[in-house]
């Protein structure tokens, strides 16, 4: 059974919602059932953004992720808010340039990725989200990198494709070093 229930969370403007959208598109192209649910409530007015994404070969009930198999966070408040929603053994990916603490939980897998620093090496801090997304997809294997790149090509802006591709590949490339 292929199934991932993922929460993406951070500040508005970091590309949190589009990260989730690209993954949802990729899941759809991989013939999985998918749902994407953004936050649109008062917390958004406070500058934080999150979205819940489900990819599964089973039927999707609630689009609200209450037991996340993966959590990707790009600021401290998001880690505080969502850490407890991870299932035991779940995957936490955090932007270690922006989150100044590690996980309190010891029953989960944690990947620290200095996404801001890496993105700067690529020439744009804005690519940080795609680096993290590349790492998430590589580590979970929920879809192949090829399908993810294809969905970014099809649904993202053409002018950003090459930069996005590099960022995704860089993120995916982090996985072997981080997990060994």
């Amino acid at each position, binding site marked *: 059974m292929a199934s991932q229930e993922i929460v993406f969370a951070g500040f508005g403007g970091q590309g949190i919602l589009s990260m989730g959208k690209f993954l949802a598109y990729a899941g759809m192209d991989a013939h999985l059932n*998918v749902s994407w649910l*953004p936050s649109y409530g008062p917390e958004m007015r406070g500058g934080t953004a999150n979205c819940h994404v489900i990819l599964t070969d089973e039927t999707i009930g*609630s*689009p609200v992720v209450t037991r996340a198999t993966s959590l990707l966070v790009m600021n401290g408040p998001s880690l505080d808010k969502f850490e407890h929603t991870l299932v035991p053994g779940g995957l936490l990916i955090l932007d270690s340039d922006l989150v100044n603490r590690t996980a309190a939980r010891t029953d989960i897998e944690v990947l620290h990725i200095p996404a801001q620093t890496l993105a700067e090496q690529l020439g744009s801090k804005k690519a940080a989200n795609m680096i993290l997304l590349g790492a998430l997809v590589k580590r979970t294997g929920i879809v192949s990198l090829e399908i993810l790149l294809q969905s970014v090509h099809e649904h993202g802006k053409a002018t950003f494709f090459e930069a996005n591709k590099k960022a995704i590949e860089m993120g995916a490339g982090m996985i072997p070093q981080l997990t060994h």
Partner: protein
Amino acid sequence: MGNKVLMKGTEAIGEAAMRANCQCFFGYPITPQTEVAAYMAKKMPALGRVFVQAESEIAAIHMVYGAAGTGVRCMTSSSSPGISLMSEGISYIAGAELPCLIVNIVRGGPGLGSIQAAQSDYFQATKGGGHGDYNMPVFAPSSVQEMIDLIQEAFDVADEYRTPCMIMGDGMLGQMMEPVEFLDRQPRKLPNKDWAATGLLGRKTHNVINSLFLAPEELEQHNTHLQEKYKIIKENEVRYELFDCDRENDLILVAYGTTSRICKNVIRSAEREGILLGLVRPITLWPFPTKAFEETVHHTRFGYLTVEMSAGQMVEDVQLAVNGRAPIGFYGRTGGMVPHPDDILATVKQMVHEGVQVWH
């Protein structure tokens, strides 16, 4: 899956309506459905159709009244406080027997309430938000795909019976994205709109559209006619889904829209704990699927548990349908809070293991 596209509920509403040949959209922005108007504003003029951002919800619904009187397919979309403002116009439209579509993406109330998902407009939608003896068909989709299918169907039902129809979703259905497919569908065989106010066109008498009948005899006759029409709608247009009801269940959940999706998750987790649950999912809230309870009432050990994002508005219809033949429990959240599957399951266990009738 080749033709599937990923679409937000609110955008799917607009696209489905346009494909159903909706010619006019009148609306006023309100969270969480403003994207419907935004989508229509972008697309309708390009097709030579009408989009008007009205000065208020009251103006919008009366623009719908006027456009519907000419026989064109037209609609409006709003969220709870906006629908309250529109209720006077909806009563007029029902009285004048005009077909149109009203979309309510429900948010928490009362008053300005919140902008989060709720189902607390059930009474308003099904028992007549406006004045007078009227009803309108109310469809409650539980996915973006079903939203699309029901919008096209609702336009047909509106035309067939000369009645306003409502699509009732909630903030979550409006905001979420799911893969959808726009399939060619066979439209119903619909009567000619020979009642429409389109000019004389060679006729001798004007078509008059009105909801005013000053002579009580005439108004009573009009009401009798409306009631006969509602009876036919009740006979022909009831829709519901029975999920896992083809077995002897410990308990049957009753839920619609977003809440029914959560209940489907609960059914799976209850199974892992040896508890068998079914689900009655009303798709039309009016007419209410009483028949679904005739089919299930003898196949549940501990009765029904109604789950809603309201203080229990649908429970009354469940009680009428069950008519004392089985216990009925209730679990609900309000104010924009979404029921958690674990909390629903805990309530299920109370009913099944302790045999108590619960009311949270």
